[in-house]
């Protein structure tokens, strides 16, 4: 038997028990779980993903510490075996054990589950994580050769492993070593017109189809450099008998250093990084309800306990905000001021959709109000259309929840309740209810009815205007989804699409701009982006692009979204404030309002900016401006943010 074979035999006999234990944990226990599971799903990937690095550390330290201690080390040094050969055999046998113990369970899961995974895709873990495990193992091996005390070496190695995981989040120059970046890159390859870009290729070391782009190879290179550096350091340490005297000091500083790195990562992931240009104080007990602006003028809607709803005109100058006097609006409770529109040349005249109850009846009829904010007391003129009564309304009237009876208006039959909405374009105002009424706005304060057309909203009801929402909320896998829009005379298909998906469409969890539709699921945590692929006369086809699920840190420090806006490729999400009934949930114990901004012009949404204001309870009135600035209303202040520093 050659010397190398003898060394291999010895190492294998020493380390195989670790392989057996690891296979029991990563294959045996999930197998037991699969037998008890109703659908017999074998699920090893979460454990492999979370504990893989730890196994690398344990094996790395375990293979070295036994032979590099006291008399046994002297014995080995007296043998006619080169130190390099001895260390190399140890290194590669240990590495083989780590990779086998972690890859075999993933292969079994891929084969058994046939793609029905509920957690992270095991093929992605198998494609990229072995490099992290190799690097972690290399670091642990080197630490054990240098420190020679197993417990200390393990602590230092775990600290180094955490740095390897977290430091790339904190340091942009080494972001290519971020595991989530490289896995996302393969999960959501960039597309153009529904086709994956040609820079993507199939990973050669994987028997299953996983794509990569050349940039991702930097991750492989980086991890291999760490592993090789670990091996070189270990060789030098054993050859020259280098030792680090480990003690309290080393352990304290290592753990402390890791805590600092993790803290910095948290700060970068969830901390405030949006520049505030201006902050205006609001009067006591005054709260912003909504802000709308075209970039130069706008209206702020506020609520005060004594006066109720009030409007304030707004001028957005390059130097900052200028607010007009607060104006009370008569009968504002019957108006949907948040759905109001105005013409660019008359920004202070609002056309507000609304509804009113019919006397002695619980039914409602749509109204259109013209609110003139140019005078000291806002003037309102309301046009009403009692003929547009709708069936099945459930609305709040005078503080009481009432359910109306189904009235017999066969021509207005609706499967769902809706909000009337308005769309203004080119001196024309389109009032969309069950009928479309077109007004001429040549005299802005005196809208003249031009035509009344019956419009067909089928096959989908008005409020939930798109089938995509249903697909996304159901969680069903889909590639494309359709959005239907009504046939409105005088408007192009894109304008008609905006009537159902635009900012005035009254949608709750969906925002559409620049051909991108972003939706937030019912729990308010997960974002899905879809890109407009095909626009016909009556429908738009969207292709699903990417999904964003919050990281553990973001989940812990965040809370479900409350209000959303989208513009210039950025999706703004203000996070819901804590509620008394939320106290059971740790993440909602954290006080203060927060805002997260996602970039949605790439293949998948990714968080890029954050703002937290612990002295505010909630943010309302998200209004991104065309020049990249952002208006945001809080409970105590109105904020004007500068354009994001980088995208």
């Amino acid at each position, binding site marked *: 038997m050659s010397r190398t074979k003898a060394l291999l035999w010895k190492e294998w006999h020493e380390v195989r028990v670790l392989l057996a234990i690891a296979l029991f944990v990563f294959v045996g226990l999930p197998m037991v779980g699969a037998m008890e599971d109703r659908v017999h799903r074998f699920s090893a990937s979460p454990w492999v993903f979370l504990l893989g690095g730890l196994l690398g550390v344990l094996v790395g330290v375990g293979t070295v510490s036994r032979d590099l201690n006291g008399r046994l080390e002297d014995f080995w040094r007296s043998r006619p075996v080169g130190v390099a050969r001895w260390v190399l055999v140890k290194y590669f046998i240990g590495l083989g054990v780590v990779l086998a113990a972690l890859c075999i369970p993933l292969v079994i899961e891929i084969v058994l589950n046939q793609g029905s995974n509920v957690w992270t895709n095991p093929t992605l873990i198998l494609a990229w994580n072995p490099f992290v495990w190799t690097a972690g193992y290399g670091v642990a091996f080197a630490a054990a050769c240098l420190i020679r005390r197993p417990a200390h070496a393990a602590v230092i190695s775990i600290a180094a492993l955490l740095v390897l995981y977290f430091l790339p989040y904190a340091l942009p120059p080494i972001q290519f070593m971020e595991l989530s970046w490289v896995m996302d890159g393969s999960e959501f390859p960039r597309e153009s017109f529904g086709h994956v870009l040609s820079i993507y290729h199939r990973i050669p070391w994987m028997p299953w189809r996983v794509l990569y782009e050349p940039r991702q190879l930097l991750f492989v290179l980086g991890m291999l450099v760490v592993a090789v550096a670990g091996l070189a350091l270990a060789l030098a340490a054993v050859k020259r008998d280098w030792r680090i005297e480990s003690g309290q000091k080393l352990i304290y500083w290592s753990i*402390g250093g890791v*805590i600092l790195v993790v*803290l910095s990562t948290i700060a970068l992931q969830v*901390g405030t990084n949006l520049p505030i240009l201006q902050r205006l104080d609001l009067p006591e007990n005054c709260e912003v309800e909504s802000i709308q602006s075209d970039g130069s003028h706008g209206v702020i809607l506020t609520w005060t306990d004594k006066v109720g709803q009030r409007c304030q005109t707004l001028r957005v100058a390059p130097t900052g905000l200028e607010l007009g006097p607060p104006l009370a609006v008569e009968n504002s409770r019957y108006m949907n001021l948040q759905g109001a529109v105005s013409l660019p040349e008359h920004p202070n005249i609002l056309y507000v959709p609304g509804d009113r109850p019919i006397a002695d009846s619980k039914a409602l009829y749509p109204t259109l109000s013209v609110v003139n904010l140019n005078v000291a007391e806002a003037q309102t003129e309301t046009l009403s259309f009692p003929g547009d009564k709708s069936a099945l309304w459930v609305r709040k009237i005078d503080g009481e929840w009432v359910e109306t009876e189904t009235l017999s208006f066969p021509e207005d039959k609706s499967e769902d309740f809706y909000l009337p909405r308005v769309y203004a374009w080119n001196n024309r105002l389109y009032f969309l209810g069950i009928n479309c009424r077109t007004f001429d706005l040549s005299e802005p304060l005196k809208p003249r009815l031009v035509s009344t057309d019956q419009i067909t909203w089928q096959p989908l009801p008005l409020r939930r205007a798109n089938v995509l929402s249903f697909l996304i909320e159901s969680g069903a896998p889909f590639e494309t989804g359709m959005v239907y829009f009504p046939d409105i005379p005088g408007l192009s298909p894109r304008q008609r699409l905006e009537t159902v998906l635009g900012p005035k469409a009254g949608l709750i969890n969906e925002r559409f701009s620049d051909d991108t539709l972003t939706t937030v699921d019912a729990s308010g945590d997960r974002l899905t982006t879809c890109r407009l692929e095909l626009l016909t006369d009556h429908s738009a086809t969207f292709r699903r692009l990417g999904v964003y699920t919050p990281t553990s840190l973001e989940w812990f420090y965040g809370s479900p979204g409350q209000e959303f806006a989208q513009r210039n490729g950025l999706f703004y999400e203000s996070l819901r404030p804590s509620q008394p009934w939320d106290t059971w949930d740790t993440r909602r114990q954290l006080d*203060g309002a927060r805002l997260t901004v996602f970039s949605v012009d790439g293949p998948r949404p990714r968080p890029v900016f954050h703002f*937290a204001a612990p*002295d505010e309870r909630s943010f309302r009135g998200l209004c991104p401006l065309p020049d990249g600035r952002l208006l945001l209303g809080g409970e105590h202040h109105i904020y004007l943010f500068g354009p994001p520093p980088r995208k």
Partner: protein
Amino acid sequence: MQGLLWKEWHEQRWKLAFGSLMLAAFAFVGLRARVIADDSLLRYVCGIAVLLLPLLSSTALVAAERSDGTLGSLLALPVQAWRVLVAKTVMGVALCAGPIVLTAMVSFAVSGGREMPAGAMAGMFARTLLAALSLFFWMFALSVRLPNETRAALVAVGVLVGWLIVSLGLYSAGARGTEPSLLWVTNPFFLFFMGRDGQSSVLAIAICMQAIIALALWLWAVRQFAKPQEGRS
């Protein structure tokens, strides 16, 4: 005396630097990130300080000397034993106070007056300092005879857990800062948890009571420290 202080400083300064850096960095990162309210974040920071700093400082002063076998040499010097203990106590107090003072300065610089009034912030750090010092004297006195750091750490953790259980028991029994019992005002955690809700007169009584207890514990520690170790020749 100066020589003794110099020795302690040289042995323990890295712990002072470690505690100061970690606590101040935690406060700095948290206050800059503004993920949670300043008041909540500083409560976390002060909680960490109260729980960890007395533990870090009390275990390393006497027990480490015993386990290293250097205490005998120290006591053989022509210096009275109580002077050695004074030097160690001064260093222990510095290990508790240094990080808290530095963190308070960092917190004032980053967020002073932003959300919390300066007085409230100063009060919070002052109460934290007092609670940490009170716990330090308990841990220091009870671990002064122990032969190594591990045992000292176990005793210190025992002190910590014991007072926490007492606090929880009293709190769940309905005792509040405004109507404190004798057990409450002698509890180191009273200063930290309840002090901010309590009346200033009650707080003053608690501080006086705990100062007396700390002095008594220290005198007891001096007596124990000077005694020869049993079972040794």
